[in-house]
């Protein structure tokens, strides 16, 4: 596929590892870059809204996108409390991009998943969610064919008019490995973003999310070897069944509640 005249911008953020909470290359953003590279190769532009942090770990995280083979990442410098969407929108309005790629949801910060929607709204572009692939772009008719992820591994093929914003799903192709050398040598091109203070978030109240209770697996093993086997054995399925009819369903639920000692 040669899309030499296509302008594709991929937005990247600093991710956060779910268990260690360390900054890292965000998984969906990395997939967006992978998709962009497949589409336009070295013509892919990459944009990050924010400063290069003094924290070496934040920097390493951002650089790991460069390690995928990008020559540079454009930085749109803005203070931390600024409203990234407005800053990005103002910048992107001048870019005439055909396709803007983002992740579905950031791994850190507000992580609301609203960015692609609000951005599309600001820019007056179409918005496609949970894209796994962009199959083809017809530059003459200004139309693209994209594959969208639906639950349970289903896919839907859509035709979208250019320009559009697409959020890239976890089901998209795995991102290539980030190599240390290119990551260290890649460049940041900084431009100053507009000043747009975030009006809303200071008014919000935040509390930590609560962990959902999880049923403990009871293992009746006596020896360490047995415990080991129980822990590593594949859970044998077959517990679930499909019940039709109101009576039967109610009965099945009741049975379960009795079994669990809840009624």
């Amino acid at each position, binding site marked *: 596929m040669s899309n030499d005249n296509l302008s594709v911008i991929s937005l990247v953020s600093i991710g956060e*590892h779910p*268990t*260690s909470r*360390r900054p*890292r*290359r965000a998984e969906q953003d990395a997939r967006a870059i992978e998709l962009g590279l497949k589409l336009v190769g070295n013509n892919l532009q990459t944009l990050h809204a924010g400063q290069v942090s003094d924290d070496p770990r934040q920097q390493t995280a951002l650089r790991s996108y460069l*390690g*995928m*083979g990008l020559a540079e990442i454009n930085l749109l410098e803005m203070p931390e409390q600024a409203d990234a969407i407005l800053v990005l929108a103002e910048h992107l309005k001048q870019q005439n991009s055909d396709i803007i790629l983002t992740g579905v949801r950031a791994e850190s910060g507000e992580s609301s998943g609203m960015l692609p929607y609000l951005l599309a709204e600001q820019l007056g572009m179409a918005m496609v969610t949970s894209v796994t692939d962009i199959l083809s772009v017809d530059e003459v008719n200004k139309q693209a064919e994209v594959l969208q992820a639906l639950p349970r591994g289903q896919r839907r093929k859509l035709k979208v008019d250019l320009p559009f914003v697409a959020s890239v799903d976890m089901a998209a192709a795995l991102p*290539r*490995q*980030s*190599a*240390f*050398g*290119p990551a*260290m040598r890649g460049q940041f091109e900084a431009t100053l973003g507009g000043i747009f203070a975030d009006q809303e978030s200071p008014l919000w109240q935040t509390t930590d999310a609560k962990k959902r209770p999880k049923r403990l697996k009871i293992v009746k093993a006596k020896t*360490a070897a047995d*415990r*080991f086997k129980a*822990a*590593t054995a594949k859970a044998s399925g077959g517990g679930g069944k499909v019940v039709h009819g109101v009576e039967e369903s109610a009965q099945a639920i009741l049975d379960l509640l009795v079994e669990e000692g809840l009624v």
Partner: protein
Amino acid sequence: MSSSEFLSQFLFTLISAALLLTLIGAVKRVLLWSQGQSSTVHWRGLLQIPRRYLVDLHHVVARDKYMSNTHVATAGGFVLSAILIVLLYVFQLQLQLLTWALLGSSLLMFVGSIFVMIRRRNPPPNLSLGKWQRLPKSLMVFSLSFFILTLPATGILPSDTGGWLLALLLVIGIIWGIGEMFFGMTWGGPMKHAFAGALHLGLHRRQDRFGDGQSTGLKAIDLTANKLGVEKPVDFKWNQLLSFDACVECGRCENNCPAFAAGQPLNPKKLIQDMVIGMAGGDDAKFAGSPYPGIKVGTHKGGAIIPIVNILVESETLWSCTTCRACVEACPMMIEHVDAIVDMRRFETLEKGQTPGKGNEILENLSATDNPNGYAPNTRMNWAADQNLTVFGHNADKQEVTQADVLLWIGDAAFDMRNQRTLRAIIKLLRAANVDFAVLGDAECDSGDLARRLGDEANFQRLANSNIETMNQYNFNTIVTADPHAFHCLKNEYGELGGNYNVLHHTGFFAELVNQQKLKLDNSKELALTYHDPCYLGRYNGEYDAPRFLLESMGVKIKEMQRSKSTARCCGGGGGAPVTDIPGEQRIPDMRMADVTETKAEIVAVACPQCNLMLEGVVEPRPEVKDIAELMLDALIESTGEGVVADQVGGGS
């Protein structure tokens, strides 16, 4: 002019010309090596060449008695003859003594060459054919020609014996012999190994290896360099290029390589020959040894400034290696295959981001969580929730300590249920012997072994620096660990980054405790048992005795496997091989388990968590796999040490 006068004049011209050509060839060869990157020149090593040849090299060659005697006769005879020939025919010293000496040395060489010939009549597959099959004939022709030539000069035969016919035959023989032995030495003939080999012994990149020394740690690279790792032959250090030229294609490395035996596309001998092809330019069509399993010879080519991977050598070849060092240990020329392989892997990982298999995932996990499987770093100590371990730290409320006699290095076994059993056994044993020990707890990171061997030097250095920084906050005398990979890193590889410690493997540490009677073992065990030497304990660190001593202290008579100690076959678990998972015809652990079964042992004792996993991964029925610490715990007589022990074991602190 008589035929003898003609011969002596002819020889003067011929040998002088041959020496000149040899010299030109030598300069060309040196220029080839000098394309490499700079590296310390160990000039003084050059003086050590004779010693290193006679002691260190022959120490390896002598594992094959037949070959070592043959080589002494042939090489000794040749070196002596060559010197005498130059003195007699170039400098024309007319000393009778020299003539007699030449008679003797050429005879010695001739005898040697007969044995070379016999060996090559039915050459085993690890020997190269082609030009190497010609060599014994050349040796014979050379030695015989000079022997006959010298006979008249000693007065045994009248001069001009045989007349012009013999003179003609001698001329042909001498041209052949000198061509192979002098000219061929620097123009890429089989005798190249003598020229390059001698210099390589002197200028070896790891000078510490000689005189029974050891040098097995990988060398760090500067991460700010413009290119990380080796992409093209010229990216090797010059002395690595020299080392490749020293290879005699004896195939001992091939014989010992587990990946080759398993049918994975790696043959260390061919790899070294490919490096020579890369350095000098050309293709591999003339290679006359065993191919990389599954890859046809003659399909690859290279050059000094042509990238190696996937042009000269397939990437699968590099990633098949378990870094077991069996090749290095077996190589009489002391070539460092593992260094070369890791150097090329570094480029693949650090510059191209092409670590195969699960490499990418594992390396990302190491970056994000300091352990290869991505477990939360703050769950590292979960396995020991019931162990009441003393942890190093500065929080007095949590009873953390800043000082202990022993730092027990846990390693990633912390996340593995099988190896947690070994850890528990070790802790019980340490307590039984009343050892004052503490652990780093959640602050411990993976040692970096896996990352480094997967070529990710950046990750290695980060992990190592983090561990060094943590450990430098505390006082301890010894680090003890059950993981030979961590043991090797801490002992041999952290030093370059500023971490110098006294490190012991648990078997070494326990052997000392048993010696001092601080641990008493029931020595009535009658177990049908064999012991598998972990590569990183044995070949990397020379520890073969402590594990055996411990097993014998339990009364076990070890049923040694045929390949044990320095020639032990790898379990397949090192060097990230399980991560890259390059397919072959068989699995290495299955082959090792077959070695075990051959001894009729019912238990195979191991001393490494990785070996444990690899060997337990072999389908049953198979012998049981147990760490030496587990066996020791079974044999422990608990009542030592006047009641203190009971306290420690029972109550904790």
